């Protein structure tokens, strides 16, 4: 494949196939070349049986330019040698494409439609190799099965008993060879069909020949359909990825909602208690009386003076600053205090990466009081300020 066979190799091949010595075969080739050359220079054409004909064609004198000097020169009239392949040899060499015939084209299809499919000259060998030695497992099994079945049928008709693992020897070749050729044709066609479909997903590094079978219009329709489907799928993937990225969610194994037994500073408790298994934390307020520990608590507890412990919470796809504010303080708007507390690690309030650990300041720190309307109003203003900073 894409090799160049030189004289020594040719000599070996001839001497092994004919059974003569290497010297003789080398002389043979050299003599052949010299005879051909002499004959052609004498003006006579030569025909070699099974190979082809070397003919001479007259060429008129023509003006040209000397590439080195740039001056005009005349190429004199001369003969050039033309080689015409023997018909049978041409058929054999073209055997990978032998099933194709020239076809009528419907109107409207021009060279443009073929331009997308690049066919560099170095690919076909692979493709050809594929065609020549394609036989994947299935056809062979089919052949075996069919040959076995037909043989078994024959034997059954004759009344013999056939053990299950009988090894069937293929005596009568004819029906099987027909089947074989049919299956090989089918497998070849399958490969071609696959390659036709594959052209949809061609990248520049994978050019393939695009043979047009007789079912061309149907294949083209399906090709268009598949391209459309593939591009829609890609767009959906891009959309989901960007959605995920924006929400900054890392897919987590367990739920991350907070387990608390809530104790708000105010006696009016408006917070519902959630009890979901999680991997965060302990909650103790400054003035808390009860301490609840989560058995699964894994978060570290910072060392602070005596009964003060830092409360953490983790941002997730379903837990925002507002969620936390609602839980810890009792009002969504009080998120801005949580933001303030963590502003050194937080950027845009809407774009906090899931998994970000934020400190929940104790309510007394900022004088947070859900029932205090002024406090809530202040928090709202604060929130607006924060947004203003980012949404310039």
């Amino acid at each position, binding site marked *: 494949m894409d090799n160049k066979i030189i*004289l020594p190799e040719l000599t070996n091949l001839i001497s092994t196939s004919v059974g003569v010595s290497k010297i003789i075969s080398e002389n043979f080739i050299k003599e052949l070349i010299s005879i051909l050359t002499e004959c*052609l220079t004498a003006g006579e054409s030569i*025909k070699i049986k099974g190979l082809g004909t070397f003919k001479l064609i007259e060429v008129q004198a023509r003006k040209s330019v000397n590439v080195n000097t740039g001056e005009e020169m005349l190429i004199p009239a001369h003969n050039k040698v033309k080689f015409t392949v023997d018909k049978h040899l041409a058929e*054999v*060499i073209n055997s990978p494409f032998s099933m194709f015939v020239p076809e009528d*084209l419907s109107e409207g299809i021009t060279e443009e439609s073929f331009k997308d499919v690049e066919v560099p000259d170095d690919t076909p060998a692979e493709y050809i190799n594929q065609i020549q030695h394609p036989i994947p497992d299935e056809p062979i099994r089919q052949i075996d099965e069919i040959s076995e079945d037909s043989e078994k049928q024959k034997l059954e008709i004759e009344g013999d008993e056939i053990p299950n693992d009988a090894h069937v020897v293929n005596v009568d070749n004819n029906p099987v060879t027909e089947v074989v050729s049919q299956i090989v044709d089918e497998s070849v066609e399958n490969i071609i069909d696959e390659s036709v479909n594959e052209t949809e997903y061609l990248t520049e590094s994978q050019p393939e*020949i695009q043979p047009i079978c007789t079912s061309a219009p149907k294949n083209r329709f399906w090709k268009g359909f598949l391209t459309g489907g593939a591009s829609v799928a890609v767009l959906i993937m891009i959309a989901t990825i960007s959605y995920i990225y924006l929400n900054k969610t890392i897919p987590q194994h367990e739920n991350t909602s907070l387990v608390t037994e809530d104790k708000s500073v105010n006696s009016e408790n408006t917070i519902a208690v959630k009890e979901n298994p999680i991997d965060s934390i302990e909650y103790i307020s400054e003035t808390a009386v009860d301490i609840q520990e989560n058995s699964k608590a894994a978060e570290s507890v910072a060392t602070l003076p005596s009964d003060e412990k830092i409360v953490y919470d983790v941002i997730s796809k379903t837990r925002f600053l507002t969620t936390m504010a609602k839980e810890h303080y009792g009002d969504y708007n009080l998120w801005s205090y949580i933001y303030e507390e963590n502003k050194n690690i937080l950027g845009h309030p809407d774009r906090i990466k899931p998994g970000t650990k934020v400190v929940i300041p104790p309510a007394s720190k900022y004088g947070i009081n859900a029932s205090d309307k002024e406090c809530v109003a202040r928090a709202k203003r604060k929130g607006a300020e924060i947004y203003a900073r980012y949404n310039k």
Partner: protein
Amino acid sequence: MDNTKLIDILSDRLGCEKEDVTSMLEAFTHIVKDKCSDMDNIALPGFGSFEPKMRKERIVVMPSTGKKMLVPPKISLTFKPSAILKQYLRETGE
């Protein structure tokens, strides 16, 4: 020059039997067939090389009907004469 004459001249020059020459010539043809089917080039020094070439499919217009037709891709065997041969031909042309 046809095949028989070629074999005669070859057997004379080589001093071999005509049958041997015939079988060698056939072997040569066979090698060309095998190797070129695998897209290999065969080079004969001082003469030229046999090169199988891949032809892409193309649209042609049938002059008789005026209809557009699609010619399928194919592999064709070409011969590329060497510079020495071309030189000989130019010289003998003058």
